[in-house]
């Protein structure tokens, strides 16, 4: 099995020179958000790293995550990360292979029991809706539970797998759950985003590859290296925020000048992701740079937090009707209190006269 080879072996088999290897390590360290001084450590680790077996299970999802990652990586250097792992099963990519692909998965799971890395994208329908999402006759819930048993760790790819995402959005018609809702006895790395930044996923895989460990996670199970700082703090438009210069609409002068998008509902201040530094499409741009506020897609339940275009500081205070009813109730209570007090007053005044 290919899993027994080291990454160094694989690369040399690809005819990669030492210079190329060092270049690969530099890019990988950068991807993992490690400082450049760590490159030699990375190089030593990669050289001797065993290729882990990886099983990728897509559940209730839109394939956006797979699209994002495969589109970006195929012809690039990051692609080598994928070459370095042994992707033994990816249902969507292998669909044409039918039963043989399923067999491959079973085989990989058996051979690498306890050691393989399980990647999941999509949420999982549960309870009476369990059967609403199946592959090859197995419900996804059962597949997840089976696959999780032998996994060394699980990577939840995308917000659906990590937090339930859009399927879980109110009213959650399939009672969708995230991986971490269902599996509690395995280390889980959440790589949320809708889709996640491809570089971030490869960075997480590289970390696992290089160090063989789970990276440091934040309270939402996300790797600190990529999700440690919010978009707002790393945003190149931040100076505009500080100066109080805002785009008021998407086509005003401020928008053309690239002013801060806070007033247009940007969720940057409460969204943790690497978009502002890593950016998308090989570093070309990212949502805020292209003029649209952050939607907060790497945050739990981002779909249910009101309009994307509602400023963060605008709260849900209620409505005029509720306030009116409140005022009426207050007036009723007040008048009652006043009437009681008046009674007391009158009594006192009468007694005073007497």
């Amino acid at each position, binding site marked *: 099995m290919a899993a027994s080879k080291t990454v160094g072996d694989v690369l040399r088999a690809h005819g*990669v*020179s*030492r*210079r*190329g290897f*060092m*270049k*690969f390590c*530099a*890019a990988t*360290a*950068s991807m993992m*958000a490690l*400082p*450049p*001084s760590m*490159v030699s450590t990375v190089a030593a680790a990669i050289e001797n790293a065993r290729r882990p077996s990886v099983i990728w299970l897509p559940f209730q999802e839109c394939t956006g995550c797979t699209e994002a990652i495969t589109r970006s990586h195929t*012809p*690039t*250097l*990051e*692609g*080598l990360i994928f070459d370095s792992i042994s992707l033994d099963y990816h249902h969507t990519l292998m669909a044409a292979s039918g039963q043989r692909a399923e067999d491959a998965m079973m085989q990989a799971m058996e051979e690498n029991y306890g050691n393989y890395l399980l990647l999941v994208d999509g949420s999982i329908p549960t309870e009476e809706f369990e059967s609403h999402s199946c592959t090859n006759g197995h419900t996804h819930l059962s597949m997840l539970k089976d696959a999780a048993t032998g996994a060394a760790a699980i990577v939840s790819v995308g917000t659906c797998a990590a937090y339930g995402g859009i399927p879980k959005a109110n009213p959650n018609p399939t009672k969708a759950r995230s991986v971490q809702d269902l599996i509690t006895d395995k280390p889980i790395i959440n790589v949320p985003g809708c889709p996640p930044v491809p570089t971030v996923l490869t960075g997480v895989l590289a970390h696992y590859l290089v160090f063989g460990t789970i990276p440091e996670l934040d309270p939402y199970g996300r790797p600190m290296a990529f999700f440690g700082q919010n978009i707002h703090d*790393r*945003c*190149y*438009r931040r*100076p*505009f925020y500080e100066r109080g210069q805002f785009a008021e609409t*998407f*086509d*005003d002068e401020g*928008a*053309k*000048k*690239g002013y801060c998008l806070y007033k247009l509902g940007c969720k940057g201040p409460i969204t943790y992701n690497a978009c*502002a*530094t*890593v950016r998308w499409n*090989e*570093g070309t741009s990212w949502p805020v*740079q292209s*003029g649209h506020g952050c939607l907060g897609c790497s945050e739990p339940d981002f779909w249910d937090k009101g309009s994307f275009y509602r400023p963060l500081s605008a709260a849900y205070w209620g409505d005029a009707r509720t306030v009116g009813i409140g005022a009426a109730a207050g007036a009723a209570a007040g008048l009652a209190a006043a009437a009681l007090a008046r009674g007391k007053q009158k009594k006192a005044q009468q007694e005073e006269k007497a």
Partner: protein
Amino acid sequence: MSGLSGIGVKVESGAAAPDEIYANTLPLLHEIRHALARLVESGEPTVIDIQSIPMGPGDMNRLMDALGEGEVRAEFEALGKTVIRESRYGGVWIIEHLNGSGGVAGRFIEITWVPSLLQAQREDVEAGLEALADALAAAGN
């Protein structure tokens, strides 16, 4: 043109963006100055991963303009092209790793006497020695 200008789109280029706004160039240049001083005093090299620093549109171009072109320029092909060039400030090297499709995979500024990637790598030299010896042996000498 009239149709396009009606749409709230502005094509941003390095020159058009106001300088004082995306002010990451200046702090980076200062960081480079400190690194150069360290190199001169103690010979300690520094590598800055500029790809992982938040940059506004045009920021990178401005930084590159500020660093300018120096005397040395080298390229090598390994997993895609890599360009190593000296800036107009001696000892400040700009290293751009391109991937197979020409996209930028990594961009570093190295403050050192000679970038390590320019040197022949020990493993490659060893492999070269072996290969040359094999070639000579094969030639029967």
